[in-house]
């Protein structure tokens, strides 16, 4: 792997989001909440959603972990606030499929916006869990809502 590959993994948008994440700090009034730990590294995301009707009004979270897990949680917040629950579930599933594809399937900008930067993770099997963590917790939080 060359440094170009490293840059493709750690794109500027990922480094920026990891340093100054969106959605950090759980806000009261949530309707669903879940928490997951990656047992390999101890990375942890606790995430709360506020759903009104079938629309996700807010996503807030707390946690700690590597740049990829933190940036992923931040990007997810901006992307899925305002989405319907079914649309959010659909995009989590597409995200999972792309990340597990070992670089075969790219994330499209129409559905994933800035979060397409996370697509580079799919070529690093050991890091897929880092990027998936917040998305899995969102699914679980929606299930409790």
């Amino acid at each position, binding site marked *: 792997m*060359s440094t170009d590959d490293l840059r493709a993994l750690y794109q500027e948008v990922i480094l920026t989001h990891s340093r100054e994440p969106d959605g950090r700090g759980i806000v009261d009034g949530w309707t669903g909440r879940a928490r997951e730990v990656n047992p390999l590294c101890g*990375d942890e995301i606790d995430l709360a959603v506020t759903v009104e009707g079938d629309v996700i009004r807010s996503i807030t979270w707390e946690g700690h972990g590597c740049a990829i897990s933190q940036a992923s949680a931040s990007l997810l917040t901006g992307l899925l606030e305002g989405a319907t629950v079914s649309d959010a579930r659909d995009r989590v599933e597409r995200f999972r499929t792309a990340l597990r594809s070992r670089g075969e399937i790219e994330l499209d900008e129409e559905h994933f916006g800035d979060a397409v930067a996370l697509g580079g993770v799919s070529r690093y099997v050991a890091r897929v869990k880092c990027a998936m963590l917040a998305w899995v917790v969102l699914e679980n939080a929606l299930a409790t809502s």
Partner: protein
Amino acid sequence: MSTPDLTTHLIAPGLTEAEVLTFRRDFPILGETVGGHPLAYLDSAATSQKPRAVLDAERDFLERRNSAVHRGAHTLAAEATEEFEEARATVAAFVGADPGEIVWTSNATEGINLVAYALSNAAYGDGDPALAIAPGDELVVTELEHHANLIPWQQLARRTGAVLRHLPVDDEGALRLDLIGDVITDRTRVVAVSHVSNVIGIVNPIAELVAAAHAVGAIVVLDACQSAPHIPLDVRALDVDIAVFSGHKMLGPTGVGVLYGKRALLERLPPFLTGGSMITTVTLERAEFLPPPQRFEAGTQRVSQAIGLAAAVRYLDAIGMPRIAAHDRRLGRRLVEGLAAVSGVRVLGSATAERVGLAGFDLAGVHPHDLGQFLDDRGIAIRVGHHCAQPLHRRLGLTASSRASTALYTTDDEVERFLIAVADAAGFFGVRP
């Protein structure tokens, strides 16, 4: 701080650069490249690489003498048994024990579980009932233990109603020897401690712990996984009752570990795993057990792995553990000194305490997994995460850390490449002012 068991090798010369380069030719994997860079393998504390002598010993056995040991009357069975028992004697001599005091296990984790389960089995009439653990008895661990030397004791406490206590560490991760008198009491039955911390690499001064444990009749269980490959290990000089270590961390194969136990203790200890090969007479109702070590070796054994481990021990002995220790100690000092010079790095453990070739550290603002990925981009392999020691990390105020570790085949050049890369990582992740 140096301990008495180290004084014998403090004066040994280290390895010359030419010697290390010669040894490296025995390890085929060290010639590999990662992403176009020569591999710099600084993760030997997780698992060491294996020299051809070990790979050849296993292959030669499997190709020419493979057979079940301790059964069968044919030629191969006799040869295999002899070689298997010779391997036991080789490993015994390596740690200063008698062959009858060496039990093969799958790994160090199994060795510790063997002792913990055997102690609870003592309550059911096998072995010496005086070994049984009763409610109110106390088991003592330390705050820096690997989960393998913590959870088996937690579980033993749960099974028996014993109380699990721990000797704390200070802010640097050093054992609080001043608290021994509070933690080890008349109720203490077991004291379990690591010889060398797998997170911070400091050689623990265990002599006082051993003395305090023995003064109250407690058994000392030593996790020697990180010392056996790096410093001369003399179980009699240390006077521990049990010591465990893993083959794969000391140039040997995976799947084989060693449990040393003082003969008098092993003779009183009931079995953990039961079945074939560990019995004398069996009826439908009950069984008589063999004496140690066979009592603890139920079922088909790891024969080729044990033979591979003996080859590893011969390889280490040919170089000499005192010289390997001097090499590791020098590289460990360089790691600590080099890391301490990088802005934002906190080296774990005292910089002056006796240390093997291992440095745990935290780089402010860069998660260990991201650092590990950055180093991998340059072909440098280190360990990142909680290293199976979550309580110690919590005590040090961390969730995870990074660890570079050396072996007899580690070069100064690899250590320098690593130090430069750590400094560059701070720039890459934008945490350098």
